[in-house]
């Protein structure tokens, strides 16, 4: 099911791709190429993140556009074309992930915070000289943030990417991955905790 239902209603005034949509439906020359050139780059970035492999990512983008081409007549324009294509690309990428040989789930326990017997954190967290989000959002820190995401074990990275980056809701992620909504939340929480630990040296001082 690579052609998702439309989930993000958009008022007509905010739908600049209406002309392109009509051109696509009438199979106008150049319309499909315009769609590919306009949206392909971002979709390739999404597929690269989820699949971590250039060849698979390119295959996923090609499959995304072919699925879109086949189902364009069923797209009712209730969401932006970019939103619709994004969901197809995510679905196609997840289908590719499912066909890969399953690896045993790697532990990330060593990246989770420790607690004392009384339930307090074992570590003392210190703020840096400026707010953590200001510091981490600097362009020079963004490569480190991306590298930290890529360091997460696959099962956790996928959930974090789907929920926090691609904006897919918990129920849909659970359905796509064949796990419960609670399992999605647990993996998401652990992935975020691990990411915080990996980025801790950039956040401020931590005393054990």
């Amino acid at each position: 099911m690579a052609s998702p239902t439309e989930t993000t209603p958009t008022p007509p005034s905010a739908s600049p791709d209406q002309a392109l949509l009509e051109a696509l439906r009438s199979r106008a020359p150049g319309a499909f190429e315009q769609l590919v050139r306009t949206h392909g780059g971002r979709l390739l970035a999404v597929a690269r993140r989820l699949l971590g492999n250039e060849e698979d990512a390119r295959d996923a983008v090609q499959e995304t556009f072919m699925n879109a081409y086949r189902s364009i007549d069923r797209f009712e324009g209730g969401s932006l074309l970019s939103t619709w294509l994004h969901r197809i690309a995510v679905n196609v990428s997840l289908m590719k992930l499912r066909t890969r040989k399953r690896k045993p789930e790697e532990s990330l326990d060593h990246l989770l915070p420790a607690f004392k017997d009384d339930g307090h954190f074992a570590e003392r967290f210190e703020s840096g000289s400026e707010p953590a989000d200001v510091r981490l959002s600097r362009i020079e820190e963004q490569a480190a943030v991306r590298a930290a995401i890529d360091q997460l074990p696959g099962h956790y990275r996928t959930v974090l990417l789907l929920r926090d980056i691609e904006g897919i809701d918990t129920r849909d992620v659970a359905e796509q991955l064949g796990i419960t909504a609670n399992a999605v939340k647990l993996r998401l929480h652990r992935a975020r905790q691990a990411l915080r630990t990996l980025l801790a040296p950039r956040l401020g001082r931590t005393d054990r």
Partner: protein
Amino acid sequence: MSKMTCRACSDFLVDYLEGQLDPEVRATFEFHLDKCRNCRTYLEQYAAVIRAGQCACERENEQAAGALPEELVRAILEAQGDEGSGRGSKK
């Protein structure tokens, strides 16, 4: 008001940030947060890494926009042309 430990507070972070805690639990959570500087700092950093990930990936998307490799564009258009003409072959 019942007490909450840092461990329990940590377990509620996902639901708290999504506004999904029921009012009673939320009140207990925020009471703990008000008293515990360590948990406030942890929450600040936890939320910051989420935003930082979004920021870094959005920048990645912006850099990739309009930069689809030309050979991939050609492969996609060829596949579409084949399908449109009824040949239906893949890349």
